[in-house]
């Protein structure tokens, strides 16, 4: 039996722990905070809970369109209850992970780990120290928000996403610095709950790296929800004393008052204060270096999840955690990033998998593109959410589906079937006689494929 230690109980770490335990090993998991990591405690899950509340509020406000009359002036947001509900969901999910640890006989030690040798770590918790040793060690310490170089987080006015989750009441105004996934999701939450939101983004579009067209749809919708968006704009200064944000773009320099500032310019791997340098582990600020088997330069140490840089998504971390654990157990495994879905929980939702149109054209030249708008989909009309479309990219020679992006209601659910297509390396001819369930939003995905090969029916 191999003794396997995992440092970090987030998506990469807890999945690695379960996988290693299922292989019949003695597994110890060391974690500093509540299990579940960023995903469960201050990322995916709590934000989605807040978004759901914002979504319900928005739905209720539109109830009249569905023939439901509401008493005028009686609808209000109870911010405390929204927070309570979120905390309840997070706590249930954390309990769920504790249960999984018990079920799989994983020993959980609460504390901060520092490497002493390549097989021994010191764990500190509230002044108590102990040394824990293992044959194989998996590092999954995750990542943390990056601060602006001239304005560190203070948790009061300058917030990161973790702080933004704990706000006790919705602010009147908020400036979000960084229009990436996290920034856009928070803009979507707060603007719909009544906050005046301004996004300041350095690059020329929101969601840099995503499909331009898709980003443009989101841009428009955010503006319709009352969000002000400044792209190609840089923040110059944050004046704490009078709560002013100074920013600059082609049109010149401006200042703006904000009750709160959320800085969401990226996340950096947690590689500091782990003693990695003492044991000679190869790492840089952008993460621990690993190969496709999640092996580091030290033969019994593996790393996975956000701490290796790369794609910082919880479901990628699950995958990497599984690979790292299998390798540590002596099994052969390597990561496969071919079909990693990317989900953005804004309103409308955005989800994609594979190449963007720009990347596809660079790689394959003349590709075929199939588009289907939700405006032509019956179910979208029924739900009153006709904004958005499905776009499918097809490699011209063999008809392989190489990229799908969806913007619109439930895009993050619909992308699942596109991920299957890419994962299975499917070609368009297989989908020509495919029967899509009716009436559903997912018909739009099939229609987009048909559109690409010139056989679309409903447009």
């Amino acid at each position, binding site marked *: 039996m191999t003794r396997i230690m995992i440092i970090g109980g987030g998506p990469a770490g807890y999945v690695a722990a379960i996988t290693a335990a299922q292989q019949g090993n003695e597994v110890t998991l060391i974690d500093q905070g509540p299990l579940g990591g960023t995903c469960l405690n201050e990322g995916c899950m709590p934000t989605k809970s807040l978004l759901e509340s914002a979504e319900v509020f928005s739905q209720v406000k539109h109830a009249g369109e569905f023939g439901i009359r509401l008493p005028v002036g009686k609808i209000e947001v109870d911010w405390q209850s929204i927070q309570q509900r979120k905390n309840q969901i997070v706590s249930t999910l954390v309990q769920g992970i504790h249960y999984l640890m018990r079920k799989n006989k994983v020993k959980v030690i609460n504390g901060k780990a520092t490497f002493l040798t390549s097989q021994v770590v010191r764990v500190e918790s509230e002044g108590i120290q102990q040394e824990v040793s293992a044959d194989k060690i998996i590092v999954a310490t995750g990542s943390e928000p990056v601060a602006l170089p001239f304005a560190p987080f203070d948790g009061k006015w300058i917030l990161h996403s973790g702080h933004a989750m704990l706000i006790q009441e919705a602010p009147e105004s908020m400036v979000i610095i960084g229009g990436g996934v996290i920034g856009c999701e928070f803009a979507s939450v707060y603007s719909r709950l009544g906050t005046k939101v301004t996004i300041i983004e350095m690059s020329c579009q929101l969601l840099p790296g995503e499909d331009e067209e898709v980003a443009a749809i989101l841009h428009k919708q955010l503006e319709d929800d009352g969000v002000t968006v400044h792209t190609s704009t840089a923040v110059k200064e944050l004046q704490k004393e009078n709560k002013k944000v100074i920013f600059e773009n082609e049109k010149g320099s401006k200042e703006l008052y904000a009750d709160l500032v959320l800085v969401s310019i990226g996340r950096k791997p947690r590689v500091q204060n782990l003693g990695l340098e003492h044991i000679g582990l190869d790492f840089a600020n952008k993460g621990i270096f690993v190969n496709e088997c999640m092996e580091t330069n030290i033969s019994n140490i593996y790393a996975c999840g956000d701490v290796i840089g790369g794609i910082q998504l919880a479901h990628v971390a699950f995958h990497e955690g599984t690979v790292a654990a299998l390798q540590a157990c002596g099994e052969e495994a390597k990561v496969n990033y071919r079909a990693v879905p990317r989900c953005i929980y804004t309103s409308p939702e955005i989800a994609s998998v594979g190449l963007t149109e720009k990347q596809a054209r660079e790689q394959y030249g003349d590709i075929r593109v199939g588009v289907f708008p939700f405006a032509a989909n019956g179910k979208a009309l029924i739900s009153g959410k006709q904004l958005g479309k499905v776009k499918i990219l097809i490699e011209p*020679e*063999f*008809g*392989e589906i190489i990229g799908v992006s969806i913007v619109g209601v439930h895009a993050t659910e619909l992308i699942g079937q596109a991920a299957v297509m890419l994962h*299975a*390396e*499917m*070609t368009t001819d297989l989908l020509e006689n495919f029967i899509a369930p009716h009436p559903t939003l997912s018909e739009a995905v099939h229609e987009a494929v048909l559109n690409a090969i010139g056989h679309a029916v409903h447009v």
Partner: protein
Amino acid sequence: MAVEVVMPKLGMAMKEGTVSVWNKTVGDTVGKGEPIASVSSEKIEIDVESPAEGTVLQIAVPEGEGVPPGTVICYIGSPGENIASNTKLQETEGENVASSSSVQLEQTEPKKLARTARDRIKISPVARKMAEAGGLDIESMQGTGPGGRITKEDVQEALKQARSTQVNKVTKPEQISVEKVEESQQIPVTGIRKVIAERMYESLQKSAQLTINMKVDVSKLIALQKQTMETVQSQYDNKLTVTDFIARAVVLSLKQHEQMNSAYIENKIHLYKQVHLGMAVALERGLVVPVIRNADQSTLIDLSKSIKALAKKAREGQLSQDEMQGSTFTISNLGAYGVDHFTPVLNPPEAGILGVGAVYDTPVFVGETIEKRSILPLSLTFDHRVLDGAPAAAFLQTVKKLLENPITMLF
């Protein structure tokens, strides 16, 4: 019921066996235990005995075709008897005819069957199309996806390899126009011959080998051999040959020069702690190399006995697969054929092979006088990727010193 005769598994690592010769044809009667065919795997050739008495009903695998172990190679039963699997096949065919009795075109049936057979190969849709476009045979491909599924990446890799072999073919000066000889016998390269052909070609293509030669004065050794002959015979019921002494000298030298006891595998030099000595033995069918494992743990007498025992097994075709693999250094002896120096070819991935020539008597200056001495020519081929000329020569020097002072090897 007809009895199935299957391709035997001749070793743990055996993937494929070939029927080299059928001793019987369909309709011949066979007795139980009678050899009906010779089959060969990578390094071994054995006879397959009939498991039952009867008549050969069907030969399922023709001569020269490789099949995995466990495959039925022929059926034995009583004349006129139906072969189980054949009956099944006929039944399904019958059903097909019945169900499609209306107006089906005859051609559509077999076409459909062929496609179902093809569908059983696990392959992604785009990989299949790319393979078809590139003219790849997907049936022979190994997939790396889940459950051995052939992925796009696998096909791209295979296409890349196919292209590079094609390039090799073009650059090879293969246009040496061979004049057509009136009559030539064509022998399919299978079994042991095929393995030798592939391994030797690979050895010369993929290493940086060269040979150095040295002459060893073995007069003292031959004297010692004669001197000890009676004792060895009476005490150990054995006879020490010059080859045994050479093997002993090589083993002792390898312990001193561990660079020579190594292999070059995937850009890494593997140094071995144990010496597993390969001793090439010429057989009528081809060369085999039985391996004396942990030769460094054996005394001279034990080593001598092992060499003889394995050579005997080799000549009788009784060697197991495991007795023919894992050598770390090889000795090839062509002395019996009157050869003196030659260039042995490395047995990949080993870094060295010692070629032993024929002992001859010649006048040699010993100080100021001329004496008749017995000289043994040795040729060492080594892989220059692993070590350079000087350390290789130093190894050969050590072998020479031991053989010239043979008394040191007795203990």
